[in-house]
């Protein structure tokens, strides 16, 4: 059995005449931290959406965690997103009138059942034990992103996707978030795929791939 969590072959996504992702063969081993770089419109987010089950490919094959995403029904795909994937966006997409702990519990609710004690523990793990009852508007950008990380990992996903999670953060907050992700990956052993424009952020990963106009043009392995 393959140790790759992601296996794509000829993965393509077109929107009408525009081919956002040209046939891509990509293998990501389990537990790897893969950074994806490229200019705007290079197909980074398209790749993320396909791997995260948010979109369906136009052609090719795509297996994530052993599941053939093309063969899954809409319900199956929703279950896959719920149980196997955690996503952190650049914008935090939190519910503004819920507290930090309630935002995390909402992810639990859609997954299975809410458990406040577990949500509190998750926030304590990301260093927000003192901010449990604060609403998003009362948190700094870095704190909001840490709530998002707690929300993304609360359901123990096999795969954590980050779409420029540090894009809105200052350097200090960026380092804090990256360190946190590194620690969590060591504990939970999930795979990270992170889209970024920032070379410094990409350097936190094990490997970086570069996309240009929907084509994988370069691959770089980071020295540990």
């Amino acid at each position: 059995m393959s140790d790759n969590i992601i296996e794509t072959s000829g993965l393509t996504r077109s929107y009408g005449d525009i081919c956002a992702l040209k046939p891509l063969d990509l293998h990501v081993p389990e537990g790897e931290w893969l950074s994806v770089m490229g200019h705007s419109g290079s197909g980074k987010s398209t790749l993320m959406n396909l791997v995260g089950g948010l979109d369906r490919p136009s052609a090719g094959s795509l297996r994530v965690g052993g599941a053939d995403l093309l063969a899954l029904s809409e319900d199956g795909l929703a279950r896959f997103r719920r149980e196997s994937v955690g996503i952190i966006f650049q914008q935090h997409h939190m519910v503004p009138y819920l507290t930090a702990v309630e935002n995390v519990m909402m992810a639990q609710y859609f997954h299975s059942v809410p458990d406040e004690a577990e949500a509190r523990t998750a926030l304590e793990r990301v260093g927000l034990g003192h901010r449990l009852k604060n609403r998003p508007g009362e948190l700094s950008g870095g704190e909001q992103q840490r709530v998002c990380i707690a929300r993304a990992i609360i359901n123990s996903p096999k795969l954590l996707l980050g779409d420029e999670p540090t894009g809105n953060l200052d350097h200090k907050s960026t380092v804090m978030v990256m360190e946190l992700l590194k620690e969590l990956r060591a504990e939970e052993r999930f795979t990270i795929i992170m889209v970024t424009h920032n070379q410094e952020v990409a350097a936190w990963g094990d490997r970086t791939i570069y996309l240009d106009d929907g084509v994988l043009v370069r691959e770089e392995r980071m020295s540990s």
Partner: protein
Amino acid sequence: MIAVKLIPHLLSWFGIVLILLRGFPKRRSVVIATSIAGFVIGVVGAFLLLRVLTGSVGFVIITSVLGMCFLFLWGVSVAAIYSRAGRGVTTGWGVRLVSTPLCAGSVTAISGIVAGAVCSCTLPAMDSTLMNLAMLGSISGALAYVLAYAALAVEKRISHSFTVSPSGMISAVVALQLFSSSSIIRLDLFSPLSMKVMKFAHDFVHQFMESMLIPDHVFVWSYLWRYIGLLFGKEIGFWGGMFIWFTPVLLVMCAVQYERLPSVAHIRQGAERRKLLAAAIRQRRLRLVVPFIALLIFTAAAYQSCYPNVEYWDPKPIVVTATSSGEIIIPMKSDIDLEDGKLHKFLFKQGGKEARFFVLLGPAAKLTVDLDACAICKPDGYGQADGTVICYYCKTLIPLETVGKPGGCNPVPITFTEKKDGVHIDALTLINEWTNTVQSTTKGKEGGK
């Protein structure tokens, strides 16, 4: 016509088999075989019973079996809620018992027999010849076979996550049996139940008052009697009956709702733990569906009982007068035929007083004259249907064989003489009997209908 009458009963039986198949998922072949056999035995057995036993004995036996099924549901519901609420209650033996083929077979066979017996009560009059019995057995067997396999086909299409708890299964089966039987007035349970409750409350209050000598008690103020009077109304019977009727299925719903969730403390990963809990909660919710449907069926059965789809023979009273000698003479044959076996109502008025009575030729060709009122209920009168007369007030069914005998909810008999020119009734006796009866049952406030 008979086919139309049979449809609700056959559909009820189809539902019973469907639920039993889901209730005993590992015993499908046992359920199919015993349900078909039970249904045929029920149809043929009840057919023989109703023709061999005279009067209403056959109906009494079938009604008693239905009553026992309802009592069994009460027992199951109490056991179910006790096992959920009681601490340290072990139900392992019960679960093991339910999963045995013996349990599946016996529950299914009894359900089939009861359903078959109820169906049999709607059949037209036929002689119990061997030929008729063989024909009845083969037709009911073929019908049962087709319906049982149709139920099996439907059951296989229902999602596997849709499970039924044993108590939920029993509640739905009994609900369907009672729904089926409530359309036959002589098998109906809800109205007699309401009546029993009403009579119990009535007798209890009487006994209590007598034993405590409360009318003379210094602490019982006169306005309290208004509230005590409520206990003598028809409503107490209806609401008491509703309580007894619906409580078991509500208890079953509570028992399912409070089923214990599996222990997940040993699972380290929170998401896995929550997934297991969510699956258990979802299963529990799905298990509530069948008892909820049973609740709706119980409601439909009670409605059917309160508003039966039966047309009672209830002719408009014919006004009669007395002769100069103070006798009311009703000719045996005039515009109406007193000997046609139908209830004939008359109204006699004299000096501002009136009395309603009826003349009826019973099954043993014995003529009887009775007040259109009994000694217990408000004088709402009687209607006739299906070998019985019914008291409109308390819905008690009185077999035609017992009309003319005094007591209980029977119409109050009136002495009369049968002569060549017709039935002779003493007008004064009639007026006095009516006045006394109505005064004692309404305290002189209401005159009935």
